[in-house]
């Protein structure tokens, strides 16, 4: 009996130490990950600010990072214009993960632009989502009810999918919509985070 109790205490102690250690490491990791200079540069370029000499400093001047317990990863909220939010969002494409950076304006309900951080789509087809011509469609795209990949654009929020890459276009649509949805949740009813 005595031995059992002692073993129990030992296991409890071990588990506690490991858990606390992991929580601390994860906290540091997430904080460092959000402070990735490459990501900062892409976010600045997306909203049309020059990264300048010191990316970190410029980033801190332009954005504040807001976290939300429900969605891991940060939301970059504009300092001068808090309605402007940039969100890194990922989803599955045809062959693998697609990670996008989505800038959204909550006041105008428009997408300000998207950037493709990573993808492994078919070269020449799905991979064309990287091209400026595709990404440019999102600049100022009104999206009160989200965006939609379409063959012929005639409604608000619709963009030209890449021909021959329906699945990739749909994936981009889903990721952008997920980003917008999360940005709206974080903003709450007040309109700004």
């Amino acid at each position: 009996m005595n031995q059992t109790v002692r073993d129990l205490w030992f296991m409890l102690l071990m588990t506690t130490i490991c858990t606390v250690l992991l929580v601390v490491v994860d906290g540091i990791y997430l904080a460092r990950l959000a402070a990735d200079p490459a990501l900062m540069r892409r976010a600045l370029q997306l909203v049309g600010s020059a990264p300048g000499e010191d990316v970190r400093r410029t980033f801190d001047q332009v954005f504040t990072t807001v976290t939300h317990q429900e969605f891991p990863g940060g939301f970059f909220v504009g300092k001068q214009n808090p309605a402007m939010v940039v969100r890194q969002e990922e989803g599955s494409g045809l062959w693998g993960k697609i990670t996008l950076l989505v800038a959204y304006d909550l006041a105008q309900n428009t997408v300000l632009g998207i950037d493709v951080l990573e993808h492994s789509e078919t070269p020449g087809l799905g991979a064309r989502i990287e091209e400026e011509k595709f990404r440019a469609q999102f600049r100022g795209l009104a999206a009160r009810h989200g965006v939609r990949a379409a063959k012929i654009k005639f409604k608000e929020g619709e963009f030209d999918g890449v021909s021959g890459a329906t699945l990739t276009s749909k994936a981009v649509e889903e990721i952008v919509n997920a980003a917008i949805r999360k940005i709206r949740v974080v903003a709450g009813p007040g309109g700004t985070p």
Partner: protein
Amino acid sequence: MSITNTQGWKVFAEGLWKNNPIFIMVLGICSSLAVTTFVKNAFVMYLGVAFATVFTSTIVAAIRKRIPATYRMLVFMMITSTLVIVFDRLLKLTLPAVSKEMGPYVGLIITNCIVMGRSEAFAMSNTPWLSALDGLGTSTGYGLVLLAIAVLREVLGMGTLLGFPVMPEAYARCGLLISAPGAFLCLTVLLFLANAIRDSMSGGKK
């Protein structure tokens, strides 16, 4: 007294050749096949396994008298997984590109039999210092075989070494070596060589 005569050195050197985890114990085969397409990845894998083995062995040896015999495997797993997650996070922050290439194999160090094997076979009955040396020796033995396979595969399969071209322009790359079966071939050839050397060293006696 030379360094090669100390007990610590003997414990360390045992894992390099006499008890090499891949050649003799035939442990860690899965990862030695999976991450050896590039020398760089193999080296990072070696670092990860060394980190996990050395620290797991040391911690286990330090608390070996308190570990309940019934749950000892559980305790090993807990320590190893904590350490491996820490290493994985470190790698993701410092070398994100390598981390992506290695895919799930860093996390799979947790289930690498070498780590648990050393805790069970050595650290449970030895002092922390010796256990650390044993862990280092065993993981270095593993790492050297990993690097040997990786050099073979990268040079003959891709014509590069650490990303720099080393073979002449006209060299036709051996695509087979880059594919998964090629790893088996390399490992088999190395295993054969190691056994042949071992036999000739022991003078033919069984």
